[in-house]
């Protein structure tokens, strides 16, 4: 894929642009995969031209689309209003109490891919590729691509080589943020079929008020290369806290009541093609698993 032409910006232009709020916008090379929404400040590759158009020029005004959107949002609002009459979160209380398993994402057709977004280091100028499609017979999803660890030649990026798939933030009516509440469960259950590569499962909770937006809880997913499916059950007590990829000293178990997204990342520095097939992702309550947290919590002032 060719990169856009890099235009030289004059010194006066740089000075002007440094005072301009348009530096918040970034221009990236188009990917084969759907782009992530710009919820956080993005990375602009050095030398890439800045986006000239203000945000309001980039919106396509369409009355029919707007009306359709309003209808959808009001329908969601109506469902949210009447859901408590059935029970908490629209489910009867007896279901909340008795459920031991809940399938969150089941890949059974193209519509199931809408809730996921993929990304790779191509956004920062790398050479990896990632694609997501529905598996055979609409029974799974296939995440595949090529990993390449060559860093982009921009003079500042030193490491590269990652591919990731992440669930989108669930949204309520009028695009309000909604969260997954997995507090009734203690284990993550996946049915996957991999190619022997080690993946990292990342759980991202709500981090707006803690100002730690790069906090995530991670654990490993080792896949077998065989033709047989793999049932992976990972207790949530095993997930450790990392910030921007760095494991923190002050560890604590993940709070499951406000989860924004879950993701799978490949970054094993082994260049070449990869494949991961996922049947479903769910959570379950394993009554035999009584561990609160698998790691030692860092105590700054230990009692002697």
């Amino acid at each position, binding site marked *: 894929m060719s990169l856009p032409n890099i235009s030289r910006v004059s010194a006066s232009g740089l000075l002007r642009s440094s005072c301009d709020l348009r530096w918040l916008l970034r221009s990236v090379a188009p990917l084969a995969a759907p782009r992530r929404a710009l919820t956080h400040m993005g990375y602009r590759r050095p030398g890439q031209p800045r986006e000239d158009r203000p945000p309001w020029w980039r919106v396509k005004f369409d009355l029919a689309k707007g009306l359709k959107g309003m209808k959808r949002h009001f329908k969601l609002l109506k469902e949210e209003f009447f859901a408590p009459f059935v029970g908490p979160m629209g489910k009867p*209380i007896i279901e909340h109490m008795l459920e031991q398993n809940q399938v969150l994402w089941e890949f059974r057709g193209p519509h199931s891919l809408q809730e996921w977004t993929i990304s790779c280091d191509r956004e920062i100028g790398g050479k990896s590729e990632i694609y997501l499609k529905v598996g055979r017979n609409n029974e799974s999803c296939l995440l595949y691509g090529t990993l390449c660890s060559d860093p982009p030649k921009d003079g500042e990026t030193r490491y590269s080589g990652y591919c990731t798939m992440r669930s989108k933030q669930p949204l309520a009516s009028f695009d309000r943020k909604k969260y997954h509440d997995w507090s009734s469960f203690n284990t993550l259950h996946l049915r996957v079929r991999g190619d022997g590569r080690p993946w990292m499962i990342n759980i991202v909770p709500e981090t707006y008020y*803690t100002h730690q937006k790069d906090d995530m809880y991670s654990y490993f997913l080792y896949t077998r290369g065989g033709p047989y499916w793999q049932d992976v059950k990972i207790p949530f007590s095993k997930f450790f806290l990392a910030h921007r990829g760095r494991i923190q000293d002050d560890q604590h178990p993940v709070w499951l009541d406000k989860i924004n997204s879950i993701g799978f990342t490949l970054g094993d520095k082994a260049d070449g093609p990869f494949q991961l097939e996922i049947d479903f992702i769910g959570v379950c309550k394993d009554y035999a698993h009584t561990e609160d947290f698998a790691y030692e919590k860092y105590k700054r002032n230990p009692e002697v």
Partner: protein
Amino acid sequence: MAPLIYSALIISLGLGTTMTFASTHWYLAWMGIEINTLAIIPLMAQNHIPRAIEATTKYFFVQATASATLLFAGISNAFLTGQWDITYTPYTLTSTLITLALAMKIGLAPLHSWMPEVMQGLNLLTGLILSTWQKLAPLYLIYQIQPNNPNIFIALGLMSIIVGGWGGFNQVQLRKILAYSSIAHLGWMILILSFSPPLALLTIIIYILMTFSLFSSFMLTRTTHINSLSTTWAKIPILTISTPLILLSLGGLPPLAGFMPKWMILQELTKQSLCPLATMAALSSLFSLYFYLRLSYAMTLTMPPNNPAGTLPWRLNPQHNTLPLALTTTSTICLLPMTPAIMSLMPF
């Protein structure tokens, strides 16, 4: 937390509320409330987990906003009236501002949104302090100002009862349910405050007794989710009997003590010829009763879907003192026959 620091914070909490109780000047009252806020912040954030930090941040923002509004209203009142006395608020603008600031402080609807989120991030002990002790100083100030027009209190009260009931419908987290319960009970207190302040005092005393016993029960069984209530029978069987009674008392069912304040409030509202208001309040509290019943059902009438023989825990002696729980539970369940005695003690 180091015991010395912990003691200092607890003493500061007591100091703040006492300072507000003892003050007649707006500055001193405001200072007492600020000391309260600042003392509970480290208690909330003592666990360095994101949810606790989130709760602390939200609590701080809300309380700071309310304190700033309160100070502004107090200074405006002093500017207009020429004096700093808390009880003298003849101007509607300043008394309304003060009322709204204090309503935000205690979490009355429509300024209640912070309460469930904050409670969810705290441990049960800090949540108990937030639900009970932190309400005393602002309620005292609300009691002092006594606005000329009680409509604002009626509006806040009724809205809180409805919102407190409706919000609890959708919850499975116990702390959020207790937050909405707190909002609903505060609604009852505010509703009657302008007509009969001693009844509001009675309501808050009974509410503190009931909430303390409920929080203590949950602390003993370490439950924070409605699912884990169903395993209480295996941990402490006696709580399986007493906690539903506490919950029904919170719901205001006779012959439990929680019926007492609701009965008296409805009687007083009827005497004041506010029958429609009394009817609406009584009907709105049915929402709250529904989720209390749901908790009672989960605790007493359900079994968890696991093999009981494999999960019975050891019944060890409780590590912490259960005497306060015993006393408050007994009061919550058995205090209703004492109503005539309590009424005679009330300064009507």
